[in-house]
């Protein structure tokens, strides 16, 4: 038996190590303390997205919004609380299907906020569709997601197809750029968006480049932009790349306008690019925080910071599901409830069309001024 023992020990050590670390790590998914009245369904809603790992920030912003909505609901329905079940995909499509199955098998789960990213949506949504479990995504913006005929798919924000043209319009009409350079990060989101902008701007696009995600040295792209004489640059991508890109562009003395989309609408962009971020234009199909001051105040009270990207959408998505629970809906009847939903949320009028897209989409322009992202109004 000694040989078995020998390899059992390292295993046990590994297991212990895992255990020991974990207890300290804490866990946000605490189940409900106790059930309420007999009629109470002990329902749950699911939060599906990256809560840990490299992409966790976005998921946590959403989760904050969802938790706020739950607090509101549970305050009103103290006798029958709804709990939140987290499905932490780490944004990884590979992990998504098994998590979706887990959510589907838990009959108490009546609706999902998420999946947060487009990739994991594609991996998990077919399963949700088959099981008839409603998903309202607060952040996945790939237009094609709505084209699959999934009857459980809803999107609480505008997709890239609405944002792209607005960005192009802003570049053309407001910035009055004549020579625009377009860069994307080859991601589904960034490239999709950049391609729409390229198409809409047509011949005024004087140069293109594609970078890699996680790239930090952009010297080749910088040379391309500066040598092209562009007066505006649209970047389709996320803030981790946007910050070093604009910093290096400004270091090289480029003076044009930097235009980005909601993937960069993130305080960390300004924190990292510092002065270079000044003047950056950010488009976003999201309502400026000051449009819903109560939400902003509540959020700030709870988390000690301003609502961040998609926090409002997270709040709205959760609110729709919670309204459904309040109206006595269960998993099977929730789909129709969401479909016919029509109420004002903190980000927009919450109403979906036949494909599950938000019916009322406005794209706003923001500008980085004095180290803050300031709304400059709707792009019409």
């Amino acid at each position: 038996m000694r040989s078995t023992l020998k390899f059992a020990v390292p295993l046990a050590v590994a297991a212990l190590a895992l255990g020991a670390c974990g207890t300290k790590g804490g866990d946000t998914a605490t189940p409900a303390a106790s059930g309420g009245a007999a009629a109470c369904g002990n329902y749950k809603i699911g939060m599906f997205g990256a809560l840990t790992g490299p992409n966790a920030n976005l998921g946590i912003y959403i989760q904050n919004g969802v938790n706020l909505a739950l607090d509101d609901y549970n305050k009103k329905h103290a006798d029958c609380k709804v709990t939140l079940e987290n499905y932490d995909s780490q944004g990884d499509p590979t992990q998504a299907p098994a998590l979706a199955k887990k959510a589907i098998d838990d009959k108490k789960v009546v609706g999902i906020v998420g999946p947060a990213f487009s990739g994991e949506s594609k991996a998990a949504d077919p399963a949700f569709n088959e099981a008839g479990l409603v998903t309202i995504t607060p952040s996945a913006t790939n237009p094609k997601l709505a084209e699959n005929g999934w009857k459980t798919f809803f999107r609480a924000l505008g997709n890239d197809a609405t944002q792209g043209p607005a960005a192009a319009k802003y570049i053309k009409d407001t910035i009055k750029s004549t020579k625009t350079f377009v860069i994307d990060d080859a991601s589904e989101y960034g490239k999709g968006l950049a391609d729409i902008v390229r198409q809409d701007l047509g011949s005024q696009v004087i140069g293109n480049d594609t970078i890699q995600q996680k790239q930090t040295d952009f010297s080749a792209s910088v040379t391309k932009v500066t040598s092209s004489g562009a007066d505006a640059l649209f970047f389709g991508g996320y803030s981790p790349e946007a910050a070093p890109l604009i910093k290096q562009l400004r270091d090289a003395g480029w003076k044009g306008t930097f235009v980005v989309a909601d993937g960069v609408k993130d305080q960390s962009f300004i924190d990292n690019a510092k002065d270079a971020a000044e003047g950056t234009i950010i488009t976003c199909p999201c309502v400026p925080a000051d449009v819903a001051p109560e939400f902003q105040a509540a959020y700030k009270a709870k988390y000690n910071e301003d609502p961040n990207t998609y926090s409002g959408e997270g709040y709205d998505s959760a609110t729709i599901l919670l309204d459904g629970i309040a109206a006595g809906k269960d998993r099977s009847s929730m789909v129709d409830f969401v479909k016919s939903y029509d109420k004002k949320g903190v980000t927009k009028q919450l109403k979906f069309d036949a494909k599950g897209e938000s019916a009322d989409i406005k794209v706003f322009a923001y500008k980085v001024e004095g180290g803050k992202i300031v709304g400059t109004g709707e792009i019409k």
Partner: protein
Amino acid sequence: MQNLIDNFFAYTITGLTIGAVYALVALGYTLVYGVLRLINFAHSEVFMYGTFAALWVVMLLGGRPGAGVGQVVFWVAMMFVAAMAMSGFIAVLLERVAYRPLRKRNAPPLIALISAIGASFVLAEIMGLRSRITGWVGLDDNLRDYVRNSRNNAGMPTIIAPQPIFTIGGYHVTNVDVFVIVGAIVIMIILDQFVKRSRLGRGIRAVAMDPESAALMGVNRDRVIQVTFLVGGLMAGAAAVFYMLKIGITRYDAGFILGVKAFTAAVLGGIGNLRGALLGGFILGLAENYGSAVVGSQWKDVVAFVLLVLILLFRPTGLLGESLGKARA
């Protein structure tokens, strides 16, 4: 292609700047490989810790330097001290914790690589989880600026404001470009002299050439290995400073890709060969930039790796061959 011809000097100078960083990091791989025949997979994290040290020291000392030359010199010096100390420390720690126990047990070489990979994960994750870790020990409030959004980018203020100092082929060469390229070469020369002339340097060469004979001749192998790691760490620290001056933004996983590139540079030049690392770094930086210019930045890494394969096919031991031991005594 036309773009490359028109902006040839722009691509060249910027390629050399990033190449200088590759070269300095590559030295760490090459030194350790020469002495231990080991791919120090975690060396990328040694570099990454250096970038954070450079960033933190700036934050610690007040965040934003004034203009004058004296100020700039002071800040850059502080960055060097902090980054090299941090990277050197991490490199030595790494050797003590991850490699020395294995050496004592005569573990197979592959397992050393696994230990290196493990160490790399641990180091990167500690940095990535630093907000959680400070949270446990109750220092979160005090260290908020240092640990906030620990999975995210961390940027630092501009230390050397880029100023064009001369123009070559239409490209305005900035003070930062010059500082990085010249600085890297100077450091490299110092290292070369150290390995050539100092007693410790001779020890390194002796162990690289023949560990057993070196031991017989009274060279303390453990000490030499430790010094090798330390020197590699110091070089990575210097690279980190140049990187932060040029890029200005780092992240817990910033080392990974850069490490892969630097290792590629080391192999390209001939692993184990100090001058090979320099040459490999510069060539890789240039190749990436030229490649990006011609086929698009998205193929940058592909260009780098294809170049590597081609060179290995025709020169199986890299451009300058592998010879830390024979390093031109």
